[in-house]
């Protein structure tokens, strides 16, 4: 059997009384592109930190390529982009890439790593003078410069504007196409949908779903209903119906339900005026809301 890139067995982590990760089993094969998705505080970062040996599990085990993640040989096969970290800020882009390359046994040339990250025009700029988007690209260059087999990206696009995020995702996608294992955490659903072949959903320290984006969407039987209304309080009319989420912004209402026909019938019966009605299939965000809200109800 081929050694998995990452294997987590009944992984748990408590910080004092707080259980951040509550028994996670996960196996990621070499060459997979996996997105770990979840709301803030779901345990994504704690989990990544345990995969990387930056945090010690309270119980359970984490291995990288079959060996403990603290092992230098395991780290020599991994590139990492963390959420909050710093660099020797007075060094230039090229100098930093060259430095990080020296940590790895078979680094690529600094020029190639810089080109992959799209920083060719900034290779002589000091790290402290880069913009947020450029700094994230630098961190990406540092993650890939050792030509590792696996890269870990913890919320890589946080703080980027739309344009920067788009080009950055292209960069990641291109890199993933070369057969590398990529694990990224994000709370942007479209990012996971666009990039990953496999999505692992975390909520409250547990793994609650593990599927392809398409499967994940199909797991939620239901429709997204949106309409405009002038009726101020119609929510009580829907009592007893399966409504997963409902948002109202001025007179525009968006709700997610597995019984869309019933909902529309009830609204009609109760005399709620409904204009500009739209009924559509669920997107990944709906699936995500549905998944996490069900589990929350179960847990409480």
């Amino acid at each position, binding site marked *: 059997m081929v050694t998995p890139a990452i294997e987590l067995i009944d992984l748990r982590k408590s910080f004092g009384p707080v259980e951040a990760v509550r028994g996670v089993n996960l196996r990621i094969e070499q060459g997979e592109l996996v997105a770990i998705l979840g709301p803030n505080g779901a345990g994504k970062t704690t989990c990544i930190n345990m995969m990387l040996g930056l945090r010690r599990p309270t119980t359970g085990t984490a291995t990288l390529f079959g060996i403990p993640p603290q092992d230098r040989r395991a780290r*020599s096969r991994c590139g990492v982009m963390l959420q*909050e970290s710093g*660099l*020797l800020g007075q060094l230039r882009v090229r100098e930093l890439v060259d430095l990080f390359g020296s940590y790895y046994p078979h680094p690529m040339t600094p020029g190639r790593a810089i080109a992959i990250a799209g920083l060719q025009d900034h290779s002589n700029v000091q790290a402290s003078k880069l913009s947020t988007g450029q700094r994230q690209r630098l961190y990406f260059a540092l993650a890939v410069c050792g030509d590792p087999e696996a890269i870990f990206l913890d919320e890589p696009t946080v703080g980027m504007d739309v344009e920067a995020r788009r080009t950055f995702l292209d960069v990641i996608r291109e890199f993933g196409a070369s057969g590398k294992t990529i694990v990224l955490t994000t709370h942007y659903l479209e990012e996971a949908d666009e990039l990953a072949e496999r999505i692992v959903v975390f909520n409250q320290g547990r793994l609650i779903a593990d599927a392809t984006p398409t499967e994940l969407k199909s797991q939620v039987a239901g429709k997204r209903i949106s309409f405009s209304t002038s009726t101020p309080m119609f929510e009580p009319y829907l009592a007893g119906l399966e409504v997963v989420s409902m948002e109202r912004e001025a007179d525009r209402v968006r709700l997610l339900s597995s019984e869309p026909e019933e909902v529309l019938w009830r609204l009609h019966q109760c005399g709620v005026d409904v204009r500009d009605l739209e009924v559509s299939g669920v997107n990944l965000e709906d699936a995500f809301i549905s998944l996490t809200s069900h589990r929350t109800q179960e847990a409480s």
Partner: protein
Amino acid sequence: MSIGELRFDVAPLPRMIWKQTRAQLLNTLRIPAFSLTTAVLPIMFFAFFGLPYVHQALPNSSITVGPYLMASFGAFAVSSAMVSNFGIGVAVARGQKIDLLQRATPLPPAVAIAANVVNAVFFAFFSLLALFVFASIAGGVTLDIGTWLNLIFRLLAGAAPLIGLGMAIGYAAGPNSAVAVANLIYLPMSFASGLFIPVAQLPSFIQKVAPYLPTYHYGQIAWNAVGAPSESMETAVIWLSVWTVVLFGLALRFFRLDQNRKFS
């Protein structure tokens, strides 16, 4: 792509040590406020406290005040380079979370620390050199080449307890308080050890405390090199060794506390 068989290897250490040392050195050199202060402060103090009296005879000895104070301020220069490089440098690096990403790479933490030691020694060496050049040009204080080399060697080799002190401060203090904490500890300590004004001229209660301080014995190995010690070399070395063990023990404790907070 065939990925059935795993190949495990690691980067060669010498190249890593060389690049890490060079990178940290470059980074520090590009902050002149930091690198220049280390060299300028001892020269300034020497000019204030020493320059007017360099040709007077030193009481109870065969030498003049010049070489004596050059040894004193040499000791001060090296100790401030060590304490600021480690104390302030490490605390600032922790504050900026430079250690966090490094920790996730295959770089062994010991290599980054070794690079820090080389850097501190480098800065200490150049601030010593600057002081000697200033003293000989502005004050006409000269030693024979052997004494000069001996002084440099002793000051660098004997600085171990001060590296320990710097590391202890660096791992205990926050990035904003490190400068204040470092100054508050080693400035009074240097003063009380007779590095600015000879111990014999200090108030009597300070004279009683001085022989317990690491910088006092550190000063002794320098004064011994220019021929004006007030204790034997053996005594000084034993005291410095004990202080090295104590201060590194303290540094290790703070280092572990810091690591446990972040990585357990």
